[in-house]
């Protein structure tokens, strides 16, 4: 499977069975939020971003209200300036995924191609599932699927293709996701409540930055002057807000950095 843009397909099967008002409310929020975001981005005032984030926030809230009880899949791809071998190797170390998958807390190798995933769930409750690597074709493809008895199902597939003229390697990721039924489904779904393609794309951007630049760009933790309360609150609904506090290099690598 290969496509140049991100795609997100929702299983249409039961969307018709939701109450009309629910569906209308949801799309109303998404549409209004989107328009607000667009307007905010083109506004002159400093409230511009605030509005944009607020708009985005409303749109996300709209998306979040989606009762993710049916399976869906999401896809994204990215070009990385590295060899296929390097991309494949880095992706084969499942334990390192949290470095670029910000919603994943840890991946533990259980042996025999089995891995335990723990993700940051709503209100800091961890969500966990076990996955089995199903197909592995050196430098080409990795596929994994969730084992039975997991809280949720997250099946993944990543493919590596060489681009011409030393441009590097294209990485294509597809994720299939199925939450469990019942209240747990709702709470777990909010973990993926943001646009799933956006989340995958964010992860891929970070993977690319790690490979190409050796680090993920950030401004978290830099100084600034007084912020208004409104801005601070709106930062909270920023779709890119890190789900967990990043360990600060300044704290971790005290001995390694040089200070005049």
């Amino acid at each position, binding site marked *: 499977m290969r496509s140049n843009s991100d795609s997100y397909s929702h299983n249409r099967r039961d969307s018709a069975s939701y109450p009309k008002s629910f569906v209308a409310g949801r799309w109303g929020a998404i549409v209004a939020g989107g328009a607000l975001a667009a307007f905010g981005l083109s506004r002159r005032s*400093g409230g511009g*971003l605030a509005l944009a984030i607020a708009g985005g926030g409303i749109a996300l809230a709209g998306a979040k209200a989606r009762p993710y009880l049916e399976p869906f899949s999401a896809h994204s791809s990215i070009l990385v300036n590295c060899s296929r071998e390097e991309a494949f190797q880095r992706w084969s170390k499942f334990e390192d995924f949290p470095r670029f998958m910000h919603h994943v807390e840890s991946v533990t190798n259980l042996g025999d191609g089995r891995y335990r995933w723990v993700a940051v769930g709503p209100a800091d409750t961890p969500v966990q599932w076990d996955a089995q690597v199903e197909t592995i074709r050196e430098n080409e493809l990795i596929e994994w699927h969730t084992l039975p008895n997991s809280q949720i199902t997250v099946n993944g597939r990543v493919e590596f293709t060489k681009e011409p003229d030393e441009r590097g390697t294209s990485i294509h990721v597809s994720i299939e996701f199925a939450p469990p039924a019942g209240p747990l489904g709702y709470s777990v779904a909010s973990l993926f409540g943001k646009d799933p393609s956006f989340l995958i794309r964010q992860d891929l951007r970070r993977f690319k930055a790690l490979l190409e630049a050796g*680090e993920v760009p950030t401004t978290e933790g830099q100084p600034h*002057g*007084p912020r208004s309360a409104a801005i601070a609150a709106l930062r909270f609904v920023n779709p890119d807000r890190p789900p967990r506090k990043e360990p600060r*290099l300044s704290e971790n690598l005290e001995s390694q950095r040089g200070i005049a």
Partner: protein
Amino acid sequence: MKAVCWLGIEKMSVETVPDPEIINPRDAIVRITSTAICGSDLHLYNGYVPTMEQGDIMGHEFMGEVVEVGPGVNKEKLKIGDRVVVPFTIACGNCFFCKHQLWSCCDNSNPNYWIAEKMMGYSPSGLFGYTHMMGGYAGGQAQFARVPFADVGPLKIPSGIPDDKVLFLSDIFPTGYFGALNCDIKPGDTVAIWGCGPVGQFAIRSAFMLGAERVIAIDRFRYRLQQAEQGGAETINYEEVDSVLGTLKEMTSNIGPDSCMDAVGMEAHGKGLTYLLDKAKQAVKVETDRPLVLRECIQACRKGGTVSVPGVYAGFDDMIPLGAFMNKGLTLKTGQTHMMRFMGDLFQRIQNDEIDPSFVISHRVPIDRAPEMYKIFRDKQDRCTKVVLDPWTNGHAA
């Protein structure tokens, strides 16, 4: 530390904020010795570029001394104690765009790339102190700055050469040069340059360096036009002629300048109905820019010529004469400057005494006076061309 913070439209304030720290392995911390206010900062001051937030630290033209380096910085390229000029574009050094020397298009330096993608399709590089859409990095109108990917951008400067001579390698000298390079100058060429601000001034001098026969500079402030003349340009005061277009025709035997440069950008001043219309649209946010000069450049350029746009535009513009552009077969070249392509060469030219960039400096003041200087620079009062701030001396009004 002290830092110039944006608190809202036309509201700058010097605040005491925490010192920056190393956040990523390839970061360095620079103790700033000189920093400047740029024409680009005026677009933020006036509130025309979206995604500023109250409390953002301003500034992207700075230099100083490296006082701290992260463990990921290549020690052969940069170490503590080095004196450096920091370019305003932030680049990783290893993505497709960096490999192609398209430094201001780096793929890995803008953490907020997704905001920029909404506006532009794809995101350019991160910039210091220049909106959240462009990364939200704290800027350099401060006593210290955190410099990401510190082994890629900063240019080392030996001691003995004063800050004033090299500070503008951080932006406007390379920007003027890039603007001139984008004019694709051939021997015998005439280049017309709109805007005699610091960018225009460096563009004039660079155009001659690159072999232009004539440069015609356009502005309305006498003192800036005089400075253009000192650089060898002929000048047009657009307030004293009926039409710039007509005057340029006369001056070029009706063929038109071989290339036209817009060194003014999104806040062009003008007269007549279209100017008022642009101003009104910009005020109610149906148009982000006032592209008067860009329109004029396209109209004025000779057939088959080149339009170069170092002036900054932010969003969406109306009434661009695409008919003229297409039918005359023009070429348009633009971009945030790919800084690292030019800094080394231009530093050599400074060392060879081919040019002394300090000629643009009109004001040197302690950082505490930055807020009032924004206004003076914006309103071109007191023959203001370029303001350099000293982060370390105290002082309000002299």
